């Protein structure tokens, strides 16, 4: 019987299979950042252990960093200490750090692919749930907790049980104004915020194959929002062209050898999945969320479910969620006023996202009462945006281009949405308080967010663009 993409990579990384238990899984690349690593390093020190393979670890500072005046010391004391601790630990344990001020600094899931560290066929982990992003290259990539960060630092391995396998096929052509963020928000709205828990998900089908690497990363990034252990897409020419010539990509003979292997990474025709889901690209509208988990999303012309559509068991959580959001059951989302627009995060802060937004807003002005933050995913994205004149377009539109970091996606730094305010956000989570205590989040694509920036309310991008 044939093998799935997941199985081909998994089997190559099993150091040992424990009978009736997990596998000892070898990890090729380990990304670390300031928030989930300090306790892991402390654990190593307590045990008197070195980092086993420091050259396979890459570090950056992203969650806590300010997105203005990055050349100045971090004002907030605890954030500053955490970032300094990372610097100290990396120096002590011999790990490459792309910290504040470094030309490669940025959100960990943006810089890995950008630098060519992320390559097909690898196993990749990071103490961050959005590590699933890297699966877009045909890798097994997943988020881990700090105890597991310590294990990987100490041994380059983890104890892992093999997940079940799910394939989601998206066939057909996307409608006007519909982009990859809408595909994944649509999928999660269909299968719920826990619908893929326990599974590794492979995305396939013509609509996926036609996407750029940036767009594929957006999809894999949000796999965790339906509970998936990881999300992945088989590598193809689009993948190989993206990786080629990047800083840490293989070169010369090594490239040829790697490429020959990468070309074997796909699910065989007779491979078996535990679950398959088929989606028609034509059914997908621009999406918007209305509630407090990413599964609570609808098409932009849709209505928030009425209470009669909710089961008795789900009702208390549903009502609490809508109460928090200040949204009525059965309401339309279109026309809902927004106060903030956040374009950023590991989901949508790549150069293609910024270009998409700039292409739409060029020559337009933001709505008067709306504050618009654009936070590039990395120093390299920022540099490229400036080189392409995208910064000028944003400036003329009244958008604020800030400096790289996780920013208002999780409000660990100063970039918080005030209590009670509505933010349309290209990030990945609309949880209560995610963007700041009592902040209210609508998740959407960069295009839909940009549309709201111009009109001041949730809008249907299709009415604002030409064919």
């Amino acid at each position, binding site marked *: 019987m044939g093998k799935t993409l997941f199985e081909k990579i998994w089997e*190559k990384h099993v150091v040992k299979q424990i009978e009736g238990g997990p596998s000892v899984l070898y990890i090729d690349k380990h990304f670390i950042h300031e928030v989930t690593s300090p306790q892991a390093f402390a654990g190593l020190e307590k045990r008197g252990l070195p980092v086993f393979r420091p050259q396979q670890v890459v570090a950056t500072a992203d969650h806590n960093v300010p997105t203005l005046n990055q050349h100045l010391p971090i004002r907030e004391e605890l954030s500053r*200490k955490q970032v300094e601790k990372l610097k100290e630990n990396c120096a002590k344990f011999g790990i490459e750090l792309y910290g504040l001020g470094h030309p490669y600094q940025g959100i960990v899931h943006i810089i890995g692919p950008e630098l060519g560290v992320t390559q097909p066929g690898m196993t990749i982990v990071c103490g961050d*749930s959005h590590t699933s992003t890297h699966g877009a290259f045909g890798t097994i990539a997943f988020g881990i907790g700090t*105890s597991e960060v310590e294990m990987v630092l100490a041994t380059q391995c983890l*104890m892992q049980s093999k997940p079940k396998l799910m394939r989601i096929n998206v066939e057909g052509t996307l409608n006007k104004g519909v982009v990859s963020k809408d595909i994944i928000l649509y999928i999660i709205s269909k299968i719920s915020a826990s619908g893929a828990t326990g599974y590794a998900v492979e995305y396939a089908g013509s609509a996926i194959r036609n996407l750029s690497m940036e767009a594929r990363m957006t999809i894999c990034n949000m796999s965790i929002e339906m509970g998936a252990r990881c999300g992945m897409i088989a590598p193809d020419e689009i993948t190989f062209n993206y990786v080629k010539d990047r800083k840490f990509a293989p070169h010369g003979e090594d490239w040829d050898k790697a490429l020959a292997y990468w070309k074997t990474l796909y699910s065989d025709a007779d491979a078996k999945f535990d679950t398959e889901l088929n989606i028609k690209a034509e059914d997908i509208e621009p999406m918007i969320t209305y509630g407090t988990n990413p599964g609570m999303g609808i098409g932009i012309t849709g209505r928030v479910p009425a209470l009669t559509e909710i089961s008795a068991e789900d009702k208390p*959580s549903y009502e609490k969620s809508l109460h928090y959001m200040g949204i009525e059951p059965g309401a339309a989302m279109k026309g809902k006023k927004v106060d903030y627009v956040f374009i950023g995060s590991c989901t949508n802060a790549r150069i293609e996202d910024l270009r998409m937004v700039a292409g739409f807003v060029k020559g337009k002005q933001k709505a008067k009462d709306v504050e618009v933050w654009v936070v590039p995913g990395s120093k390299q994205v920022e540099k490229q945006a400036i080189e392409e004149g995208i910064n000028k377009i944003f400036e003329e539109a009244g958008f604020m281009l800030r400096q790289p970091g996780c920013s208002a996606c999780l409000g660990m730094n100063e970039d918080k949405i005030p209590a009670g305010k509505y933010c349309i956000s290209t990030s990945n989570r609309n949880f209560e*308080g995610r963007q700041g*205590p009592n902040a209210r989040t609508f998740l959407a694509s960069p295009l839909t967010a940009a549309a709201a920036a111009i009109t001041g309310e949730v809008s249907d991008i299709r009415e604002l663009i030409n064919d």
Partner: protein
Amino acid sequence: MSVITTIEEESRKNLSTAKFQSERKIIQSAAVPVELENIDTDQIIPARFLKATTREGFGKNLFRDWRYENDDENKPVQNFPLNNKIYSGKILVAGKNFGCGSSREHAAWAIKDYGFDAVVSSFFADIFKNNALNNFLLPVQVSDAFLEKIFNAVKKDPATALEINLEEQYIKIVPTGEQENFEINNYKKTCLLNGYDDIDYLLSMKHEIETYEAVRN
């Protein structure tokens, strides 16, 4: 407040040994019910409290934004179960898809640090489950129907004791005797019962890991 402080202090003592004591093969305790679904790790411990560089002290901010109005410790939300004096104990009971969202292990640390030894739900998010197990906090997955029975029993009588037997893998509502078995993989069970960490095991495999690397290259 004094009750909470005592529980926190006790749990810190337990954390310092960081092992699931053998006498804890059986946890018998009243439970605290949080009857909501999809409780994400941002609710368990909001991101602004992740700036510490040690594992201790997260319990006081467990469910911070559900526990206090406007982030004010002097204004506890009265009907939130952690603030409701009728509920106490070492077992947290919550709706399905508990621990979804961020991979922050701080969520498991906060629950443990507050004084819980087990979380009961009808469904757990993957990463949270691993993080819990790595901190000797036992995730007990029950059926939707049994979860409802627990909620009903605890709401009717907050003193209702639950019994969780790890060795025999069952959870019982003590006064009624109703019980259900729960799953846990044998490897993890052995680790919990004996106080082993994954890292101890992985470190013992150094030689095999090096051999794997050599063969692969």
